[in-house]
């Protein structure tokens, strides 16, 4: 698949309206889902938008060579969120202090969200991709760049950890 890939800056700078490119359409179609995925993976709405755009920026540079852009975007989003988790290093709760979505601890659903947020990043990623994106083990493994057996392990251990924390 060959996809024309125009320089986004030129479109804005020359001031002329253009027909949306394939990437423009892809961006518009996938942006909301990507932000939501990043939100679920980071716990922060504001950071999610930033990371989603980071992911698109990475996709943009090689969009015309990518055969299946959606799985690629998904894997890229999971990866940039993982890098964000790495950067925050020892400040485990930092994302909650910086723009995390407010949850109501007395609400059982919010309590569950908090428990999921406390999972290790990979466990959380598996839970989000399994239960929000409804992805198969194989697709999750592709996004996480690991083996399906590892996904299975992460999944079962995530559920066990959630069960343990539930009142």
């Amino acid at each position: 698949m060959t996809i024309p890939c125009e320089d986004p800056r030129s479109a804005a700078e020359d001031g002329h309206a253009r027909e949306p490119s394939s990437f423009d359409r892809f961006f518009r179609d996938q942006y909301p889902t990507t932000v939501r995925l990043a939100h679920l993976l980071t716990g922060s709405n504001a950071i999610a938008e930033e990371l989603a755009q980071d992911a698109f920026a990475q996709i943009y540079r090689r969009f015309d060579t990518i055969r299946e852009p959606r799985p690629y975007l998904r894997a890229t989003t999971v990866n940039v969120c993982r890098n964000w988790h790495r950067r925050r290093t020892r400040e485990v709760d930092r994302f909650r202090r910086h723009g995390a979505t407010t949850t109501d601890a007395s609400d059982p659903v919010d309590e569950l969200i908090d428990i999921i947020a406390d999972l290790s990043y990979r466990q959380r990623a598996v839970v989000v991709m399994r239960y929000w994106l409804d992805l198969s083990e194989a697709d999750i493994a592709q996004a996480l760049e690991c083996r399906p057996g590892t996904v299975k392990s992460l999944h079962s251990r995530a559920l066990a950890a959630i069960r343990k924390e539930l009142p």
Partner: protein
Amino acid sequence: MTTSLEHDIRTALARQADRTTIDAAPEFGERPLRLHLDSTTRPRHRRLVPLMAAAAVLVAVAGLVVVTQLRDETPAPLAERPAVDASSAAVGLYPAGEVDSIVAAGFDTPQAAVDAYLADRTRPDVVPDGYTVTYSVSDLEPPRIRDDAAVVGFSLATENDTGDGLLLVRQVGADAQPERWVVTGGGIGTFTIDQLDFRDGQLTGSFTNDAGGQTQVDVYDAASGERLAQSSDDPFTIDDLTASAVTVRFWNTVADGGYPIAVFAEAIVHSGETVTDIGESALHDQYYDAIQQQVEGTHEPFDTGPIAAFLPEVAGDMVTIVDEPGFKIDAQVQPVQRTGQDEYCLAITWAGQELPFDTQATCFSAEAIAMQQDIGNGAGLGGPVAVLDSLDGTQVLVVGAVPDAVTDIRTETGKNITPTHNIWWDVIDSGSLVTYKIIASDGRTTELTAG
């Protein structure tokens, strides 16, 4: 089977996703994305500075680990390991040594062996410099994957992260009383030893590390515990090893402190052996199957015994077994050839009206219950339950047939249901899920979710 928990997770994630505020999706090329593109396409030299700084930190941290390892020239003692004869055959990672010494001074449960093993491997003097590692052992009864082998779950935690893994333990000295167990391999889920080959004194190996960072490989004499060599290459080759078996220990650290901060795996390989796919991933399928069998084992009290209480004596007879205001259940025995057994079909009256008699929905066989197979249109519910639409379309009835041993059923909301003539039922909102705890007369329990 979708459990109540999985349903709750879906609901919670969907709600959280709906909370995401998204400005009208920006056109590609408008300011927010453009800023990102500007920053990611900035001149190379401007990006090299932070990259070089990061590389310097990485080298410094990796160097610290290496220096620490080199500084410690004395072989790390294996804590409280049994006395071993270095000339005899080593059988595992811990306790080190051959069968007799392990039987003489070993551990009588898989968990005890794992606990001692992890205590030894997480000692401050053997973990990477600058890291404090704690561990926990799963309190789940170790599922046996063979008569003499079991898998134990564990977790390692550092200051800012945790990782889960599996360890294979093997029973040694078949007639030993008490039993004796030895840890033979495994590790954290994000690290897999792909291959170890040990022959003619040369050890070669490769691994898959999902976490990135730096991996230190330490090679020990499996019998004596003496450290023989180390490497940080992948794949790696180590020559001139004189041991008849070596244990190969991996510590992976992520220099920037990200997830997971410390990953651990270890395996034993004997001279002349090639072993592949070692680690948590290799164990997981067996572990998963064993866990499933273990879980199914909790159904045992309900697998046995006939369903005697409402068994009519003559096939085709209709017998009223529940007759309460607004709720009436008749049972009818219907021979069904496909199962080779009689099925008990229930005719249900709800709010004074007869529900459509649907054999798919309301027929149970003792065999089906014993096998814990899906019954009627209760398929996927994991138990002897049928769900019927009520006449007003707003509620469903949950009706189950249970073996004689079941005396009590409790809902997650605390409601107690006592089976009547082996039949229990509940009224729940249409579309909702309820988890029921089924309790046998001997105190054993199991759960099922219906709705």
